Each structure stands twice: as C-alpha cells, then as structure tokens.
C-alpha cells in the first residue's frame, strides 16, 4: 500500500523575535538569540522549516532560593546568594539566555525597592554577555513600580520582560515600547484569553511581532496534557494564518518540574524511585521534551543535565 502524502502547507508563520543586542546594535551582549520563525508544526521538516531551534534560558534569582532541592544546591549553592555570580555560572554551563526573576521585590519576600532591582539587573548584565529575560515578582502594583525602572536602565539591551496580563498591561507595554524591549504576554492555560491579551497589548500601540506568549506550564504528571493541547491549538491557529497568535512561546519548565514531589522528595523517603540526583533532572528534561512537541520556542530550565538532555533531543529532532 502506498504511503499517503500527509504534507501540509500552511499560510501562516511564527514571528521571529530576536532578543539581546550586540554593541553594533546598541547593546552590550556578545550575541543575540532569535526565537520562532517556524513555517510548520514543530519538528515536521516536511511541513515547513524551523529556522531557529528552541533556545534554553537558565534560571537566576535575585535572592537566595528557599527550599530548592539538593541537586540544584550542588550546582548553584556556592553562588546563589549573589545573582551576578549565579548568572556567570549559568553562562559557563552553556545557557543561551539568562532568566532573571526579581522575586526579592515581592512585598512578602524582602520588598526590595526598584533601585535595588535595577542594581541587580545591571550587575547581571555586566557579569555575562547573554541576552536577558527579566520577570517581576508577579504582584502587579509592585511590578509596575519596578519594571519600568528596569526597562529604562536596560535601554538598548533588547531584553524580554515579563509579564503582561489581561488586567495589567498598560504600564509594562509603555515601558517596553519606550525603551525597546520585547514582552511576555501571559494568559494562564486559556487560549482565548491569550488571544485577547495580545489584542489588548496591540491596542496600546505595542507591535504584536514583539510579543512572546506564555501560556503557563505544567509538569509531567501534573496536567501537562492540558498545557500541551493549548500549545498545539495556538500553534495550529497561527500556522493557519491567525496573525494575532503568531508569537513564539516561552515555557517555564524548571520552576514547574522542581515543584513536583517526584523531583523534590529525598532518597530516604523515595528509595524505589531512584536517586534524586538523576530523578530531578530527568523529570525536568522529560517535561521539556514533551512540551517541545506541542511547540515551544524558549524553555526556562534549572539543572544543567536537563539542559544537556533537552539540547540533545532538539539536535536529534532538527537533524537533517
């Protein structure tokens, strides 16, 4: 029986979004990273090209993490009290980008003022020459005080700033527009809201082509299927020509994977599960590898072994 030709032609294409800026482009980064640009379903080269394979950012916090499991302490424990040193470690481990979270600005987690956040971001920029993703603390009132300052201080660096939502988007969109940064558009697990956030942000005059979608993330065993179906639905709409949904996607895999009991439980309580040093990174890598199939352009990870495994998977899937 002949194999039927299942090749599909798509009218849409994912927007390419470049992060970082070299000195020639007005920034200080050693190189830039471009996300998106796909002309077909993830890793189906017969459908259309994937000009920019998915990129990986490693997590850096502006405050010493609380409760991170042993495998992560082994990698970062000696540097994690100081963000610049932590970022340097992440760069040495081979990250494409640094994912900096300003958690210490949270009113309940230190309430660091905007000036302190700016100092942290500047220290990280000086320590490494990778493009930066910068998130606030997820308290809108505080983020609206902190993030415009961060945007101003990093003018020209073409960072990816997070995140705008259906209810809070004007301040951050204005700051990103004024200082030339890209934006993360967040809509938790809701494809229709995701489209709506993009429309609202676009209404402020911020270009749709500078957005990256964050549909939130779930780990293996914790509702990942739901996120997967949302990823897939959004990508199919974009490829079918829905320009409002044609943004690359960022997924926060590390945070989700390392919250699971499978990745966190110590060996004494989970002997049959195998050693945590393998279990945690494996949980992170498998979550990432599966979500990649649903279409993800930027993965935020934590453990270097997970990063290595995911890179190898991407390499095998994009090999020609």
């Amino acid at each position, binding site marked *: 029986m002949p194999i039927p030709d299942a090749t599909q032609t798509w009218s849409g294409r994912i927007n390419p979004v470049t992060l970082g800026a070299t000195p020639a482009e007005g920034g200080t980064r050693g190189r830039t990273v471009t996300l998106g640009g796909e002309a077909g379903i993830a890793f189906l080269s017969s459908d259309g090209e994937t000009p920019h394979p998915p990129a990986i950012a490693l997590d850096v916090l502006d405050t010493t993490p609380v409760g991170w499991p042993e495998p992560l302490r082994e990698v970062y424990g000696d540097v994690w009290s100081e963000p610049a040193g932590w970022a340097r470690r992440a760069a040495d481990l081979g990250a494409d980008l640094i994912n900096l979270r300003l958690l210490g600005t949270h009113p309940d987690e230190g309430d660091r003022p905007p000036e302190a956040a700016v100092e942290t971001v500047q220290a990280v920029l000086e320590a490494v020459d990778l493009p930066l993703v910068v998130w606030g603390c997820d308290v809108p009132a505080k983020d609206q005080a902190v993030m415009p300052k961060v945007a101003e201080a990093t003018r020209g660096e073409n960072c990816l700033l997070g995140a705008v939502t259906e209810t809070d988007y004007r301040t951050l969109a204005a700051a990103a527009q004024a200082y030339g940064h890209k934006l993360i558009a967040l809509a938790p697990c809701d*494809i*229709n*809201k*995701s*489209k*709506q956030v993009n*429309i*609202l942000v*676009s*209404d402020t005059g911020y270009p*749709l082509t500078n957005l990256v979608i964050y549909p939130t993330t779930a780990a293996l065993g914790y509702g990942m299927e739901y996120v997967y179906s949302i990823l897939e*639905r*959004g990508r199919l*709409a974009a490829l079918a*020509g*829905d*320009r*409002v*949904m044609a943004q690359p996607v960022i997924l926060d895999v590390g945070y989700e994977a390392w919250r699971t009991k499978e990745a966190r439980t110590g060996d004494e309580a989970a002997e049959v599960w195998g050693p945590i040093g393998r279990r945690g990174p494996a949980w992170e890598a498998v979550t990432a590898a599966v979500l990649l199939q649903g279409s993800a352009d930027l993965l935020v990870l934590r453990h270097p072994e997970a990063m290595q495994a995911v890179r190898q998977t991407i390499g095998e899937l994009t090999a020609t």
Partner: protein
Amino acid sequence: MIVFSERINGMYRDVRSAIVERNPEVIQDLAEQQLAGGADVMDLNVGPAKGDAVEHFVWLARTVHEVTDKPLSLDSAKADLLVQVVPRVRDALPDTKLVINSCTAAPSYMEKLLPVATSCGAAIIGLTMDQEGVPGNVEKRIECGATFIMTALEHGIPIDAIYIDPIVLPVNAAFKQQQFVIEAIRQLSIVNDPPPKFIVGLSNVSQKCRMNRLLNRTFLVMCLAAGLDAAIVDAADDELIAAMISAEVLLGKELYSDDYIKAWRMQRGLPAQVEPAQV
C-alpha cells in the same frame, strides 16, 4: 470566508452613471467602503450601462486597481463579453489576480470561457445550471456542478481556482430553493478531493424582501455551516460581516477571543471600528 464585494455593479444607478461619465471618484469611494468593511475580492459588473461594455470593464478594473491590489472578479452573465474582457483586463493589469464570474455548465459556455481562464491564469466561478436553465432541485445542481468541476480540471485549471455557485434564488419567489443550495454545497464537497470552493451571490436570497439584511446574514450563516467558502456580499454591511465572523468562530475556523471581531479586522490590517450595534 473570502469576501467578494458586490457593490460596484451597474445595476446601481450611481455606479452606472459613474461608468458612463468616467467618474472615478464615485467608484473609488465605493471600493474604499467595501475594503474598509473587509472585502478580499472586488466584484465588478458594468450592468446595463450604455456604451462599449468591454471598454467600461477595462476602465472599471483600472479605476478600482488604483486604490487596491486585491483580486478583481469580472462579473457578467454574457460569455461572449467575458471572452473579450478578461484578456483585456489581464493585459492592462498583468499582476492582478482575476476571477471570471461566471460560467454555466452548458458546453457552449465552458468551451468559450474555460480556455480564457487557462490562458489568463484566472480563477472561475461555475454556476450549477446548463442550457436548460436554473435547476429546481438538488440533483440537477449536483450534476451541473460535477460536470463543471471535471471539465475545468481537464482544462488544467487548478482546483483551488475553481468556485462553484449553486445559485441562490429569492425566498419570496422560490421558497424551497434555499435548502437545495445548502444540500448542493454538502454533496458537491465530496465530488472532488480536495473540493472546489463554494460561493453564493448572497443578496439574491432577499430580493424585494422587506427584511433583506436580516435574511442575508441568516442565510449566510446557514451556508457557512454547510461549507461555504466565499460569498458576494455588501462588505460595508457591518452586521452581516459580524455574523459571518461569529459563524467562523463557532465553526472553529477562527480562534475565539473576547474581541474576536477586532481580531479579524486586525488580521486584515483594517483599522478598529466601533462594534456593530450591540450584537
């Protein structure tokens, strides 16, 4: 859905006198209104304007092309006229996509117009009728449609350049015909894989009816549910376009968002507009 704008038609008095007087402003204003409403293809019909119909068509096509690069649909029931018009417009506007509107499934029509479609690289609309006239049932529509699709394919016209029009008749004069149109779309979808595109001349359904706009948009939604791809409509009728977009969202062809009508317009690069009266 592919929106063919119907307004530039010599049946309207303002268009007819603009054609005869060679007044581009009237035509271009109408074209701009249709484009602002979301028209994808500009249907042009010189109607009963006095004078040389071929020259009228060429002037109309050039005049509309001055304000848009969108495809032009050259609309006449006279095959002999289209045979002259299409090559002339092709020469005048070599890079513009053209649609021939329309050709019946009668051999005498297809012999004339299908070679013109091939040689001019134009799409063509086939009516599900032949020399015996408009069918009063589904079966004859299917037969004519299938004949047209097969003959057009034999002439080397690609399937995505073939439109089938199952012929809409006024509801006040022919009350069962609307169901036949819907059934014909359903059945003709399986004649060829992939299927041709289906198109209707929508406002025929409500000719001389008092609530014509309500009938138009209701019938459009019914046809879309059956698999309609295109319609010749008044693109400046906001409520009609809103109903069409809503149907496409409900059919899963467009992704829902609270501002889905605005999203549809954004995707066409159209400026946002005030939403139609609380829908």
